[in-house]
């Protein structure tokens, strides 16, 4: 069993090496709940493929399963970059059904959503471990970025040596504070944007091509 597994791993490493140049990089969109990950994923997918990735909502944990949009071709400065976008569920350390009760949801639905959201976090963490070649980390620039989740996830991404692009989203809101995010992660470049309004998307695409091309 061990011998066969090793053999299979060796073969897959060789074949991975052969086809690595042709295969699109899988880019995970990560971040806490309600940071605007799905809005960004939809924005990117709509801009370059015409399709959407998934439904957006102001209720946290709308995305409870990772959704993938494959072969998104982004053109920048005459260069073409093909990526697979993985929109992941918001990562958090606590899920409580009570936070959904404020959004016109009965208890049964709230409990189910809570359970699915928890499964979603587990899935997102699993993808981070196994299946992504790079990360777009989306933060809500109207909230404090110094959280356990952000620190831990950025730490994991750095320990994995994954290329990471940090986006300060929701710049269309008056309380947006991009500098606060830049201060929190000085080792990374922070790009401001409003995925909802499509503000500064040009720079975002340039950086995507630069980081993941």
């Amino acid at each position, binding site marked *: 069993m061990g011998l066969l*597994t090793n053999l*299979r791993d060796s073969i*897959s490493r060789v074949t*991975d090496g052969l086809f690595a140049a042709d295969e699109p990089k899988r880019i995970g969109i990560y971040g806490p709940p309600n940071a605007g990950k799905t809005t960004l994923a939809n924005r990117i997918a709509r801009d370059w493929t015409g399709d959407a990735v998934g439904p957006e909502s102001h209720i946290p944990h709308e995305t409870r399963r990772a959704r993938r949009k494959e072969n998104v071709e982004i053109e920048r400065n005459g260069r073409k970059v093909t990526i697979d976008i993985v929109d992941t569920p918001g*990562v*958090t*350390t*606590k*899920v*409580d*059904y*009570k936070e959904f009760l404020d959004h016109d949801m009965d*208890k*049964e639905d*709230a*409990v189910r959503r*809570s*359970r699915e959201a*928890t*499964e979603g*976090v*587990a*899935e997102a*963490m*699993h993808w*981070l*471990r196994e*299946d992504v070649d790079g990360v777009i980390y989306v933060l809500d620039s109207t909230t404090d970025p110094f959280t356990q*989740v952000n620190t*831990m*996830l950025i730490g*994991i991404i750095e320990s994995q040596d994954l290329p990471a692009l940090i986006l300060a989203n929701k710049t269309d809101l008056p309380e947006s504070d991009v500098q606060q995010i830049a201060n929190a992660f000085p080792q990374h470049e922070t790009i401001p944007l409003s995925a909802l309004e499509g503000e500064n998307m040009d720079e975002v695409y340039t950086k995507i091509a630069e980081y993941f091309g």
Partner: protein
Amino acid sequence: MPHQCIECGRTFPDGSKEMLSGCPDCGGNKFQFKPSGASDPSNSASSADPEPTAGSEPAPDFDSSSEARSETAPAGSAGPTDSTDPAGSTDPAGSTDPADQSDPDPADRPSERTVSSDTMESDTTDPVEGDAERIDDEGAEDTAQASARSDVVTPDELDRAARETGSTGVDSESVEPPASQPGVDELRDELNEQFESIRIVSPGQYELNLMELYDRQEYIISLQEDGRYVIEMPDAWGVTDE
């Protein structure tokens, strides 16, 4: 005097190794089995020796087992033709083995079986002996088998086993078991200790250990409200995605 050379009449104790290379006196390789008790007439049909004990013997008719053989069996019928007799391998007469029946001490049986594993194949009427025959097929009895046969389950183990069965009996489809149900609470605590990556505070309330989730090789794909998990095993157990 269980075995006797049919050429010169020399007798051997049961299972004597001397017989394995032929009779030391006359070189004969045909032996007849003479049980200590009275012979059972039904055993006259079981004179076949289904499998040679010593592979180098061309016509190994000697019987190292306790299988009974009638003294009246003609030497000719115990020759090479009999060794291929299919009846020999399925002969239920083996169950009436007088040597076994006359054995006063059951503790002696295992050692006896290791010698007679070939012929015991025919013994299908006794479930205990049937089990022992399968064990013998794989070689000598090991300590686990010996312990399983001789040791007795302690009341503690019985109690624990009963509790485990009771816990797993919880219906996994139940959406929300009552919080007051002690069994479910216990199970939830137990699972929380084992799977510290997700702590179920109460139905719909979870605490997640992100590092644990990240470090886990297996992937939790589904949570049950009773505290159970459905996990996907690591790739090593199956086919990879790619």
